[in-house]
């Protein structure tokens, strides 16, 4: 996503002096909505992170940086962060990587059935995460789930504690479900990027003897660079913000093993009533997301 140009364009257009007031008015709806529903709550969350209070109690006690110090020494906070990072890295590999492979195949690898495959693979994107989570819960159930039935029929061992009940497996299952749902989106995005590369570029390169991998390296990759950055950013931010999927499938369990920042913040805030602490963790998430957004802008600008 490009940044507004810092230098003024060379050719000056007619000045729009008369529109000065109306410009503000035209921006008002967006500014008011973003201000009221995003920026003010974000500021309140930052302020709240320096207080100790519960949702139900009327007194706010100023505690300085205590909530942040608490986070630093809370093993569950670090577990949640590391789970988020696991999901982020795993999702980038599986979703952006998988999406890129599928997109490349659909773009130039096969001749027939492209629209059919594309449509089906994208379909899970429009299904709500709640629905996705419930269906997968049934599939992964250790007693009556189809997956266990299939694995057993193949004569393979099934996990004794269940697909979602074994801490060493459940995070991988979350990755799998997330990939099932999101690969189609990344595929579509990258496919659009691939198809925007003019065919002549390949033809010209082919004349110069660049084919296959070489063409991919010198033409395809630079051509979809911004798309890849965008796809990665969406996946990374999505990985840090993940909530619905974990909330419904594992609830952060077994025994906190799959707790992520989103669910842990929610638990601290709404189950335990530690609003100040929840706000401090929320601010960590917010700063992380903001830094990532900034990084994306920087990366795209060079392009």
């Amino acid at each position, binding site marked *: *996503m*490009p*940044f*507004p140009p*810092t230098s003024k364009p060379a050719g000056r*257009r007619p000045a*729009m002096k*008369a529109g000065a007031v*109306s*410009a503000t008015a*035209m921006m008002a*709806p*967006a*500014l008011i*909505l973003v201000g*009221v*529903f*995003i920026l*003010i*709550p974000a500021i*309140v*969350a930052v302020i709240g992170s320096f207080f100790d209070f519960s949702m139900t109690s009327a007194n706010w006690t100023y505690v300085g940086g205590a909530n942040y110090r608490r986070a630093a020494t809370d093993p569950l906070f670090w577990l949640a962060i590391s789970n988020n990072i696991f999901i982020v890295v795993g999702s980038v590999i599986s979703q952006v990587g998988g999406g890129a492979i*599928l997109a490349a*195949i*659909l773009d130039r690898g*096969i001749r027939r059935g492209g629209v059919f495959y594309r449509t*089906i*693979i*994208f379909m*899970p994107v*429009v299904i*709500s*995460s709640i*629905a996705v989570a*419930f*269906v997968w819960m*049934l599939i992964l159930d250790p007693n*009556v789930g*189809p997956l266990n*039935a299939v694995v057993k029929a193949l004569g393979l061992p099934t996990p004794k504690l269940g697909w979602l009940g074994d801490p060493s497996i459940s995070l991988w299952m979350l990755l799998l479900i997330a990939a*099932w749902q999101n690969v*189609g989106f990344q595929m579509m*995005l990258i*496919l*659009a*990027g691939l198809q*925007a590369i003019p065919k002549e570029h390949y033809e010209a390169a082919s004349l110069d003897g660049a084919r296959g991998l070489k063409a991919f390296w010198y033409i395809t990759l630079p051509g*979809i660079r911004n798309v890849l950055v*965008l796809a990665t950013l969406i996946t990374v*931010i999505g990985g840090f913000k993940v909530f*619905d999927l974990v909330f*419904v499938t594992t609830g952060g369990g077994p025994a906190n093993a799959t707790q992520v920042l989103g669910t842990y913040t*929610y638990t601290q*805030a709404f189950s335990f009533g530690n*609003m100040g602490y929840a706000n401090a963790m*929320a601010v960590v*998430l*917010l700063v992380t997301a*903001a830094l990532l*957004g900034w990084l994306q802008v920087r990366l795209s600008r060079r392009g």
Partner: protein
Amino acid sequence: MTLRSRTVAIGLHAVVSLWTLFVLLPVFVMVISAFKSQAELFTRPLALPKHFSFAAFERAWGIGISGFLVNSILVTALSVFIIIFASSLAAYILARSERPVMRWVYVAIVAGFAVPLQSVMVPLYQLVSSAGLLNSRLAIALPYAAYGIPFTTMLFYTFFLEFPRELEEAARLDGCGRLEVFFRIVLPLSGPAIASGAIFQAVFNWNEFILALLMLTKSDVRTLPVGIYGLTGQYSADWPALMAGLAIATVPLIVIFLLAQRHFVRSLAGLGK
């Protein structure tokens, strides 16, 4: 076609086919489970139902899925409309203005993209609550709209930067004001940007769960995701009805997607530039 390239082609087909199959299986499980009885669902998980029974659909419909559906449509339509309206106007001004302050305005709006909903849940709830908007569809549509604006503004901004200015200038010379230029010339030619913005936000808002869970506590205003979540009771869970409910909730979006997918793919192409 050589043997080698034929083998490669078959291999590539196999890869996409496998993933396609993997995508379809859970959907298949959802649909066949909805036609089974609870006992059959548990004893023969993979088999086709012995008798196709619509009873589960009736039970799911009976809890008010139709109402949830209507609420979801209203909330999604309203929020997407506001998003497109507000974002396109703002992005147009931002893309055309040369005042340095606009750069900061742009940054402020885009920064909103980085604010995760969970991190502001509590203040947001208190805000909506103190405005007396709990349990109103508006309560959910306005924050949804706000959270859709940053991304959509970025989308339109990119689009307007490349929009041919000659047309606007011609209209301006004819005496059209800025607002008129925007609504008469720019917006009608912004189809692709509008389409992709609308689809993105529709998908997000249709599926949003956590705000709806907190703010819509009355069953007659609940949207689909919260309504579906409510299908699992504390002391009893009717899995066939749950699956039927999920199927009912899922089908409309899939149909819309199938109808609009051509436009969608085209408009996505604009995103990555």
